[in-house]
């Protein structure tokens, strides 16, 4: 019993944020007379917020390491514009254009990482400069917008997995399969980590916690799968991209040496350096990675819009940063999880969608989102302070 309580206590922030998401979803479900969770709305929730999630993955790493990246919105416009030019003016196949875009994103990251890591300019300044530079370059390159992109490219963000296996009732079978694989994979991964821990004679989380965790995950994935299977297209392609990135980067942060080094330099840079961590290289790597993920977001955004737009990506950096902070990433660095940031992104996304369905004015939407961000971080700080006082 004590073990359960201690386990929950240690992870209360994580569960609190999931609960907050559920409450917000239910609230809007009621406020919108059930329209929030129309299958097609669930699908477009994913498609509309994919860019935030992709950017937030990179941003978590940046913030955990104690930096910030203000430039990602402008980089999205710059790389997206370049990608559109490659496809229309250079007439490159869209897949080649996408890959080249990722390379360009990496180069942007190299540029910013160099100044941050090796010259030692604070990331706030480097990326503030980057915000201006890349926005300017985007406008120079694109003008206002470049349309006429190939259909294959546009389907990245707008298309769904084809309906290979037909329907069960109204449900798309492909989607059901994807959902089932997701649930099984989650349960197996958790179970394997349990058995591995036990094999080494180490204490594991209580069985009850495991069951609860897997059940809740299964329920959530199941419900989302059900809605998506009912939606017009089934599984959005972009969901698979985002899902793959979440899994891959969670692994990087939790299990890789690189990920550990990020937490180490964010938590105590001096101690990390004196432990032999090459902090400069880690910083550099984080920014290169952020550049690549910004390019992924650029591809997603450009595909969604169907055109390279010079004004694309405005305030994206703020969306991503807000998602991280709502998701429990510490402002001071050293603490933060991708799962948290993803839920933070979903909270913002649900707010956006719910308020839009309710036809709330865009200006008010912005104000409400601002207050949610403030409330989330305030909750975090107050609960930490209470924990420290006890």
């Amino acid at each position, binding site marked *: 019993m004590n073990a359960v309580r*201690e386990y929950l206590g240690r992870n209360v922030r994580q569960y609190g944020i999931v609960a907050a998401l559920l409450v917000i979803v239910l609230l809007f479900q009621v406020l919108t007379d059930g329209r929030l969770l129309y299958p097609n709305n669930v699908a477009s929730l994913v498609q509309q917020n994919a860019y935030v999630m992709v950017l937030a993955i990179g941003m978590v790493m940046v913030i955990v390491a104690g930096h910030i990246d203000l430039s990602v919105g402008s980089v999205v416009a710059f790389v997206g514009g370049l990608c559109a030019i490659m496809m229309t003016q250079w007439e490159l196949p869209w897949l080649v254009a996408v890959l080249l875009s990722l390379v360009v994103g990496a180069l942007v990251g190299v540029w910013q990482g160099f100044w941050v890591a090796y010259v030692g300019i604070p990331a706030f300044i480097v990326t503030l400069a980057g915000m201006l530079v890349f926005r300017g370059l985007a406008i120079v390159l694109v003008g206002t917008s470049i349309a006429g992109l190939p259909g294959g490219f546009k389907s990245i963000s707008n298309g769904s997995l084809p309906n290979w296996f037909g329907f069960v009732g109204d449900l798309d079978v492909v989607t059901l399969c994807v959902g089932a694989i997701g649930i099984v994979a989650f349960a197996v991964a958790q179970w394997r980590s349990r058995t591995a821990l036990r094999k080494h004679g180490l204490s594991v989380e209580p069985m009850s916690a495991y069951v609860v965790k897997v059940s809740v995950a299964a329920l959530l994935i199941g419900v989302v799968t059900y809605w998506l299977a009912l939606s017009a297209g089934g599984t959005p392609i972009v969901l698979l991209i985002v899902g793959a990135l979440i899994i891959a980067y969670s692994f990087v942060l939790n299990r890789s040496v690189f990920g550990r080094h990020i937490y180490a330099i964010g938590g105590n840079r001096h101690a990390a350096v004196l432990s032999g961590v090459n902090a400069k290289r880690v910083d550099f790597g984080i920014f290169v990675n952020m550049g690549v993920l910004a390019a992924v977001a650029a591809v997603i955004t450009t595909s969604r819009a169907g055109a390279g737009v010079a004004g694309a990506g405005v305030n994206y950096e703020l969306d991503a940063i807000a998602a991280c902070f709502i998701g429990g990433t510490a402002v001071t660095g050293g603490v933060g999880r991708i799962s948290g940031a993803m839920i933070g992104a979903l909270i913002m996304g649900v707010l956006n969608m719910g308020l839009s369905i309710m036809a709330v004015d865009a200006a008010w939407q912005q104000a409400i989102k601002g207050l949610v961000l403030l409330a989330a971080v305030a909750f975090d700080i107050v609960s930490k302070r209470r924990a420290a006082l006890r």
Partner: protein
Amino acid sequence: MVLENVLETGNILEMHSISKEFPGVKALQDVTLEVRRGEVHAICGENGAGKSTLMKVLSGVYPHGSYTGDVLLDGQACEFRGIRDSEARGVVIIHQELALVPFLSIAENIFLGNEKATGGVVDWNRTAAEAAQLLERVGLAESPATLAADIGVGKQQLVEIAKALSKRVDLLILDEPTAALNDDDSAHLLALIEQFREAGITSIIISHKLNEIAAIADRVTILRDGRTIETLDLRGDEPVSEDRIIRGMVGRALESRFPVREPTVGAEVLRIEDWTAHHPVDTERVVVDRANLTVHAGEIVGLAGLMGAGRTELAMSVFGHAYGTRISGRVYKDGVPVRTRTVSEAISHGLAYATEDRKRYGLNLIQTIRENISASALGKVARWGVVQREEEATVAERYRRDFGIKAPTVESLAGKLSGGNQQKVVLGKWVFSDPDVLILDEPTRGIDVGAKYEIYSIVNALADAGKAVLVISSELPELLGICDRIYAMSQGRITGEVARAEATQETLMHYMTMDKGVIDR
């Protein structure tokens, strides 16, 4: 204001039946403390005994209601809701970690939050004049305009005291005031407390240094495991020995403060020749001056020196040039010259450096014991860049058991541990990197007697396993107790080398103060 007869004979402070609980821990249970007006009252106890918690209750850091029991000042019950309340009653606490703003001047620091101002406009002339008076009172010969960052830690401590004196002080609480000070500064500080006693200020001093307590305190209250054990009168007819106090602290008489060990010294492992390093900012200043030293396998070598002698700077500049600029000299490992220009290079040559400042340089306090222990040799529990978490946890668990790190699991955060246990984590981290040379900088600073013994045992075991160990310490008895050979440093230079048999505190101190004597800046 208060009845005279209470003042004459009574207690300035009485704390009755104080209990304070944290989740799962009873930090204080039924603690009683009585302090007589005008005395210097010492509080002793192992780390985690509840000394700091008790002082936080007294000073209002833990507000009234978060503990049970009564606090009486001059016989009046107090219900402090914060530090401001207690300060209004003349209770001022000076914490172990100094709280000066580095880029403000001494004068600004002294009157921080209490500015000499009229209508919100600071009167700088008054500020400077009053600061100068206070500095004179604490015997600090610095201009009030000097930045706090530009003076040493000993002088900073004096500024803190001047700051306390700028308020109305009846009861001054000093938490480990001399922990970071060299002997001269400590002596000065203790003399100052004596002066305060004569001026009628009552002091409570928390200290691990029993000789200081013996020298200065009138009475000592000993806490153990959150309870009051006893209050001893040091000025009574019967002399109270240090061992007597230690017995109260640990609940048992220590047979020896240092574990016995038969050294088996092997071949030379580390040799440093002609090592020079300059100050990182003031690059003209020589901090380490042509130092030479050797350490052999299985040998524990001490490095003695006063604050500012350059011991830490020597160690850190060797360890991956982590300190200083314009570094020159040669490092030989097993007789072969090696380069140690980065920390990872130093580690790859089998060097390890456990810092004196655990919280700033040693640990990531918001990570777990497991993550801290593997930090310097993560590659050993990783394959293809992937951390094998189970192996990592097994390793951490091993050190938790072997070193007796008191924590429920290796998933506990390093920041939640007591100083002694944090030090064991730091040791575990470096032992796990499997070095040939371990440099331990103040390995027992701020650690209670019981945990010190455990640390010494670990150090001995490392030497017995053939490691070359270099111990930097400010406590001469510690060096004499555990080292086979001791170097003394003064003003950046190695001024002496003494074998264990010939070493005494006097000979070491002679070398440590050699040459230019006390540096006057």
